[in-house]
């Protein structure tokens, strides 16, 4: 019933905890009407494709029932069209005999001719509660931005039926909404979906950090660790698909890869932006950031920030699964294969020329290019296996950059941290002797440090801006970050990647914190 789905949606919107979201979805998938749950999974996981109404059509529908000026004032107050219309829709006496089902709604919308959808929707809205109207409108408007990623939906599915996430990821793209075959497999009522014909995502093999000394280099091959994003490019019969780390299809944002590999191929590599003048022809992460999340990028962006994949593994070749083979075998097929791919779209991730642990350690500490974040160690005789398995792959990161910054603003955290000021904005000095914010951090400190930081914030308030507290500019925080790039969107002109608080400098006077100019010189260094 649409009511169950609406209730789920309402809880998901409010809930901040990832675990709670997971268990809410899992419980729904177990308990909801089997006719409905597949469509719900598709809606949450982003695989539901419905002909969509625009918000102006929805507004017009509402304006036929409510005064337009009252509608406008309400929309202004509420801030969201679907929610405004859900709340304002006049209540009809008596509900329809048969309750609406999600399946009924989705099928009718799929089959409706373009012009008929509004009348259909209006008829449903008349029979529903405000909560249900909201869910219906969100479905019809197609904007399900409620903080649920495809990966979260898959994880919840795995949790609901006690199956492995790696298997769910493998079968997901081979199964179409309402995913009946996936449910049948997970509940033991049917075979696994047939993955041979469909283009699909294969779960990534992941690495563990090196703790202490690195493993024996005779057993391990070494590669650079690149500062881009991990991707998988796969092609079956149709066009190639590009998947992100979480298995999400990001092909729309990178159209340059659709026909770039032959059918029957799946490769694993790092997505980067090319800059022929930079070391290893690799531009900084901020160039790549311009491309992320931009569906249908304009030509100027495609040319100005051309993406390529630095390939490090081959999972499928000429239709055959290479994953059971050792790294050494896969690598030799990969080396020959990359030769045949267009050079502007692909290159081979080079091996690190280190012969012993001392040399490797030196190279890790001082990598030869800013786009390198350290080294990777991969066991030569290991097959390609989903997940993080000890003894097979390791990452050994470069030491992070650090800067001494001054705490400027603080905000409360969420969940268990909601009574603590745990979100910090910090700044550095300008030439003119002013502090400007250079970043925000929420982690890196211990629980005891959090208690002290919270106490400092509460005792040094100088201003309030809604939920944000301004504090006395006295406390120096040593901030660690993986890289830093130019960013015209920020007042300081720069943006840190993964900033976290590495030390609290209770001892250091604020005047001795770093300058914005010093941070800018780090960008120059890293170019």
């Amino acid at each position, binding site marked *: 019933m649409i009511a169950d789905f609406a209730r789920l949606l309402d809880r998901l919107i409010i809930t901040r905890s990832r675990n709670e979201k997971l268990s809410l979805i899992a419980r729904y998938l177990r308990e909801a009407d089997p006719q409905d749950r597949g469509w719900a999974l598709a809606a949450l996981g982003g695989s539901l494709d419905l002909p969509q109404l625009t918000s102006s059509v929805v507004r017009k529908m509402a304006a036929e029932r409510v005064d337009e000026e*009252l509608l406008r*004032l309400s929309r202004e107050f*509420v801030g969201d069209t679907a929610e405004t219309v859900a709340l304002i829709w006049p209540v009809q006496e008596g509900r329809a005999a048969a309750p609406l089902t999600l399946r009924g709604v989705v099928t009718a919308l799929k089959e409706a001719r373009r012009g008929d959808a509004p009348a259909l929707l209006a008829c449903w809205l008349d029979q529903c509660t405000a909560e249900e109207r909201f869910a219906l409108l969100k479905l019809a408007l197609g904007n399900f931005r409620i903080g649920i990623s495809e990966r979260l939906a898959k994880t919840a599915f795995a949790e609901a039926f006690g199956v492995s996430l790696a298997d769910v990821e493998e079968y997901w793209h081979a199964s179409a909404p309402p995913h009946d075959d996936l449910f049948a497999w997970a509940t033991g009522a049917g075979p696994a979906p047939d993955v041979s014909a469909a283009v699909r995502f294969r779960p990534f093999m992941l690495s563990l950090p090196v703790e202490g000394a690195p493993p024996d280099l005779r057993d391990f091959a070494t590669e650079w660790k690149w500062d881009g994003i991990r991707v998988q490019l796969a092609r079956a019969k149709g066009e190639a698909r590009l998947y992100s780390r979480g298995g999400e299809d990001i092909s729309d944002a990178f159209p340059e890869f659709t026909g770039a590999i032959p059918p029957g191929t799946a490769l694993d590599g790092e997505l980067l932006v090319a800059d022929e003048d930079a070391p290893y022809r690799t531009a900084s992460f901020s160039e790549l950031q311009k491309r992320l999340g931009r569906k249908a990028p304009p030509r100027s962006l495609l040319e100005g920030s051309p993406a390529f994949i630095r390939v490090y593994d081959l999972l499928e070749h000429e239709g055959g699964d290479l994953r059971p083979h050792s790294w050494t075998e896969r690598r030799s097929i990969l080396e020959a294969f990359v030769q045949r791919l267009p050079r502007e779209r692909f290159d081979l991730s080079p091996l690190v020329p280190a012969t012993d642990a001392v040399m490797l350690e030196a190279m890790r500490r001082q990598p030869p290019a800013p786009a390198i974040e350290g080294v990777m160690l991969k066991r030569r005789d290991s097959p390609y296996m989903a997940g993080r398995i000890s003894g097979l792959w390791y990452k050994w990161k470069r030491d992070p950059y650090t800067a001494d910054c001054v705490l400027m603003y603080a905000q*409360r955290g969420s969940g268990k941290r909601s009574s603590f000021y745990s979100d910090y904005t910090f700044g550095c000095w300008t030439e003119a002797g002013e502090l400007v914010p250079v970043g925000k951090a929420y982690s890196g400190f211990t629980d005891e440090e959090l208690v002290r930081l919270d106490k400092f914030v509460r005792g040094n308030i100088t201003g309030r801006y809604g939920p944000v507290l301004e504090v006395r500019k006295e406390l120096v925080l040593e901030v660690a970050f993986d890289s830093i790039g130019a960013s015209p969107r920020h007042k300081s002109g720069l943006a840190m990647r993964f900033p976290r608080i590495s030390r609290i400098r209770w001892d250091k006077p604020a005047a001795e914190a770093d300058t914005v100019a010093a941070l800018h010189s780090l960008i120059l260094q890293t170019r």
Partner: protein
Amino acid sequence: MPIDWIKPGAGGIEVAGGAAFVDPSLPRPLAIVTHGHADHARSGHGRVIATPETLAIMEARYGPTPGWAVAYGETVEIGDVRATLYPAGHVLGSAQVLLERGGERVIVTGDFKRARDPTCRPFVPVACDVLITEATFGLPVFRHPPAAGEVAKVIERLAEAPERSVLIGAYALGKAQRVICHLREAGYDRPVYLHGAMEKLCALYEAHGVALGELRPATGAAAKEMAGHVVVAPPSALRDRWTRRLPDPVLAMASGWLQVRQRVRQNNIDLPLVISDHADWAELTQTIREVAPSEVWVTHGSEAGLLRWCELNQIRARALHMVGRTDEGEA
């Protein structure tokens, strides 16, 4: 003929050339106070005309208050103006003020609601020429659901996570006692733990015959003891260090504003309870229809929405833009 013996101003509603003021924001020799909320009842007046309950609330908050207790339906004379108090259904002791002179009738609603509230007398519609009303929820998106369904969510959540407590942020005067009463009506019979700021007013309600069941101070109680229980605190305490004594509390809040999801997210609320002590859109418009005034004056809230409705229904209306009436917390 325009009514000239009532003058709304920034400091309150002036009656009979300044002989008295309704809900004045500055100390006045004679004040008519509709109810005990701080934005209506200020301290320092020479003498206060109010219901006995409202006077008791003011004494509990401000200390000795020279009062002139007037029961519901009773009339007092201020110069040539007659003032009568009628129940407003907002909180214990809340009143509307009917002001009459020479056959002209003006109602000042103060804050009011029409929804059922077991802690106070229900609103009585009184016919008048001029209705001076609030419009806190003066937009058609505001439709407050029955409170029973909202408290049912609290009980459901306690069953779902018995190792946690549900901390309800509720305004200390009115909302807190109402939520507890609705919980009792729904069959919740475990002790309710109270933040210290709640205790005095809860005791006052009980002394006026509003039964709240077993109440215990949260201060000093062990975390384990409060697991699976309801704790009630003022909304401001919801994010306070005070909450660290509770077992992983589910943060709930009782307010009419929480109908809007944006507000829920802004406040980081886990469990919104749409329970309001102010009239929603249907109650506001129904009330105007029932008392059938020839003119509506809107004191505060979403004036634009209510003015538009009056325009559509051909009722003369104006906004008074009264400052200092903030119903953010208590609504």
